[in-house]
């Protein structure tokens, strides 16, 4: 009898103990409690990268155990290369420093650009909030309406660009190389807005840049009538927007004109658009902390408050997980040598 009483008393106690141990095991991860995570953004305050990252930093903490604070710091320079190299080489891998730099550096790493110190294979990728969809548009005043028209055009088509190394510059030049378009790329414009204005005053005929941005900031032009209308002619992905629903995909056009090798070249170039504005931790960051960050990032991407805010700010959210980024990175770094040779002209130097 006594034994049974003992058993009755002890077993719940033991169970409680085990349960508590299990729980405190889970709580061993309250590393982040009372801490501050710094996100080093390689672009200035107020820009696209910064806006995305600040929105994430406002919502991600509630999905991390211990609810740490998250602050955004802007470390600008060299198209975010300073921030990238800093996070990779100098930042302490304690899970409290997160970097945000241009995913195109993965391509430059593959092409052997010595300025890029970041090894994308060793970085701890947390995830990316968006994907890029490089597209090309042309103004109605040119008289052209489709990509086919442009291929047939006897005279060069003037495309506006800011600088080498941007979508504005790289995509038309790549199309010239692969499918033989006659784009004349004029660099030197200040940025998206500047180029849009140049299109309206007929200084340039068109431009290539992200559709996710064009559909918002170029809306007035896309909806314009007559000569002032902006007509999309190529897009990277299929979108539901009426403006581009029937526009040919860049990959298809390239396959038609240049075959499998050309598609491979395009895939190599466009790989980094699959994870835009990614967050990453320096190599050597404890695995379990990276896991916590990945999980919190994934939850943030589904957080209704975050999504509502993003929708209001017209931020296009397409989640790519850290594991998926690792795969994409492998593909980019595995570009065949011949393709690397052909793409090397893209390294801005």
């Amino acid at each position: 009898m006594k034994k049974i009483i003992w058993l009755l008393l002890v077993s719940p106690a033991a169970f409680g103990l085990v349960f508590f141990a299990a729980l405190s095991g889970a709580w061993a991860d309250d590393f982040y409690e009372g801490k501050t995570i710094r996100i080093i953004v390689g672009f200035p305050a107020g820009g696209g990268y910064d806006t995305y990252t600040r929105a994430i930093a406002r919502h991600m903490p509630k999905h991390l155990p211990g609810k740490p604070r998250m602050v955004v710091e802007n470390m600008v320079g060299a198209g975010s290369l300073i921030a990238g190299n800093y996070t990779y080489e100098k930042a302490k891998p304690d899970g409290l420093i997160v970097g945000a730099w241009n995913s195109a550096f993965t391509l430059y790493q593959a092409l052997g650009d010595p300025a890029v110190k970041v090894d994308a294979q060793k970085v701890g990728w947390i995830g990316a909030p968006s994907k890029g969809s490089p597209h090309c548009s042309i103004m109605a005043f040119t008289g052209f309406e489709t990509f086919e028209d442009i291929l047939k055009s006897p005279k060069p088509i003037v495309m506006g660009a800011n600088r080498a190394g941007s979508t504005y510059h790289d995509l038309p030049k790549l199309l010239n190389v692969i499918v033989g378009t006659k784009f004349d790329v004029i660099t030197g414009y200040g940025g998206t807005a500047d180029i849009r204005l140049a299109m309206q005053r007929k200084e340039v005929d068109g431009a290539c840049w992200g559709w996710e941005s064009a559909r918002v900031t170029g809306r007035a032009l896309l909806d314009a009538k007559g000569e002032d209308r902006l007509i999309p002619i190529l897009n990277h992905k299929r979108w539901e927007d009426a403006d581009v629903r029937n526009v040919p995909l860049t990959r298809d056009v390239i396959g038609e004109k240049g075959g499998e090798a050309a598609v491979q070249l395009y895939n190599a170039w466009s790989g980094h658009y699959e994870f835009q504005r990614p967050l990453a931790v320096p190599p050597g960051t404890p695995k379990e902390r990276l896991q916590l960050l990945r999980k919190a990032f994934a939850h943030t991407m589904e957080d209704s408050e975050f999504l509502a805010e993003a929708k209001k700010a017209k931020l296009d959210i397409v989640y790519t997980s850290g594991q998926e980024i690792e795969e994409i990175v492998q593909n980019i770094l595995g570009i065949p040598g011949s393709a690397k040779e052909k793409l090397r002209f893209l390294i801005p130097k």
Partner: protein
Amino acid sequence: MLEAAVGALDNLSSCPCVVGIFPARLVFLFFGVLVGLSLGAIPGLGGIVGLAILLPFTFALDPYAAFAMMIGLISVTSTSDTIPSVLFGVPGTVASQATILDGHPMAKKGEAGRAFGAAYTASLLGGLFGALVLALSIPILRPVVLAFGSPEFFMMGLLGISMVAVLSGGAPVKGLIAGAAGLTIGMIGADPQAAFPRWAFDALYLWDGIPLVPVTLGVFAIPEIVDLAVKGTRIADVPQGKTTTRGVLSGISDGFRHWFLVLRCSTIGVWVGAVPGMGASVVDWFAYGHAVQTEKGASDSFGKGDVRGVIAPESANNAKEGGGLIPTIAFGVPGSASMALLLAAFLIQGLVPGPDMLTKHLDITYTMIWSLALANIMGTAICLAFTPQLAKVAMVRIHLLAPLVIAIIFLAAFQASTNFGDLITLMSFSSLGWLMKRFGWPRPPLILGLVLSGILERYLFISVRRYGLVWLVDRPLVLAIALITIISVWYGLRRSRHERKSRRIEAPASSGLKLTPSALFTLVIFLLFSFAVFTASGWSYQTRMFPWAIGIPAMSLSLVQFGIEIWRARRPTTIEDTTGIMDLPVDRSVPVSLVIHRAANMFGWLFGLFAAVWLVGFLIAVPLFMVLYLTFQAQEKWWVTLASTACVMLFVLGVFHYVIHVPWLEGAIAWPQEMLIGWIGR
């Protein structure tokens, strides 16, 4: 349209979302104005930082309140940026660089109150004028903005650079060389064509080019502090005769008396603001240059504390916000970085900038214009209320003030890109600036060249690539701007030649040595240009063309200048007092040997702080520097030392650490700062 304008005022003052007649939106406007004034008065911070921080808060606001707050913030940073410009010669934002040329000498003459009164009045009138122009130009916004293409932008840049001619005063050759140096410095970093990093020496920091703020602080602010410390008294070297309140009142009346200058400079402000890509850093120089060209007696009195030299840039830099709204509203093309953030707020509020803003959403557009006008009035009133107290700062002992100002300058320079390179830039350019000042080289052309370099190169290339050379003759606006340029240069030169009286002073008797320090300085500049031209020879045509076009003539000019100087040194005679013209005056009351001794001492402190930041990081180096300086250099009482150090640190932590989240540099010895941050949190 008038109805819409009046209705918009109603929008601003009444808000259906709040019970009663409490004008909630005006409160948001007022809040924006307060933040804007604070950011403008702190060197290195401007409206952009404030907007980026405030932007998320606009999610919850209705469009009228959101824009009232943001426009309140944007429109007044260039009102309060006058404060450090006048008091310390430290420009509060890039839009008030030219203000220091006459504002600071006024403070030295004991006229800080008058300078403030005039500056705020000019700011107010300029801001209101900008709002008025914006309101009136709504029907013609689109065609006007579209008429300006790359060739026109290039010509605007050329018009700006032509002001080097008058800004050099009596030293035309030196002025041209300084302008060329500015243009060349502006070419450092990735070129706009091939993105080849010019003169970057494998330093990523230099890829984006040398940032403007550390250069201006180095060239103007540090030499000023060093020279004040050399003199060792206080900023105002005469006791203030009039009470500050009377000074302020006379300043206000100055502002109204020179109403025509205000009108002209505001027009310049609106135009430069409306041209996308010209930006805030250019507008004050345009206005100042214009005043020098057109005002009576300018070549004699400007740079020495002429109130018109304050009125011109201050009216223009407030007017530019009205102008900046033109392309933003009409095309969604931001004229400046702050307008880009406003654009983001547009999108958050579900508004598409473009034709709709001039028809469907006209009430919002007019609300913005009213906000602009009201913000300027509020900003001016608040600034004026504090002026009597602020003007007294000029009477504080310089050695008490110097470490505080130096700490702020370092922090401000570091805001440019939060990179140690910012501090290297600051230190290099402060040495250059001090030598230029001492050897009588006009510094404004250097800054003008730097701010216009990118614009000139970009748009020249685009124009030639797109139109060949036809644009030079077949575009009426290009011809019109060219005509304005020629007339203004000719008029300005003729006037200054006419007015230039005998301005020769006795030069200190030269020892007859051929190579004076001044000539040596010129030689170094020649060698730097030669280096630039030589290294450029290996670059591709498009990367090299602009550096050569500027560098090769500059090489020959500096050789000519070198010749002039060794020739003069042989004949100990009179030299032209070029230093007082269009630049802050050099005080020659202290003997040269003492100047060198004290300046070396001061630069020693500066390099000490620089080294300390490198060694232990900002948060440890700044208080350490303050305590050491105040104890050993200023010999202040211990409690004064501790109190001022504590105040500065509270300010640094409160603004830069907790609000802006500056990524502090890790020192070579990192643990003390890390410990401190661990202790105070983030």
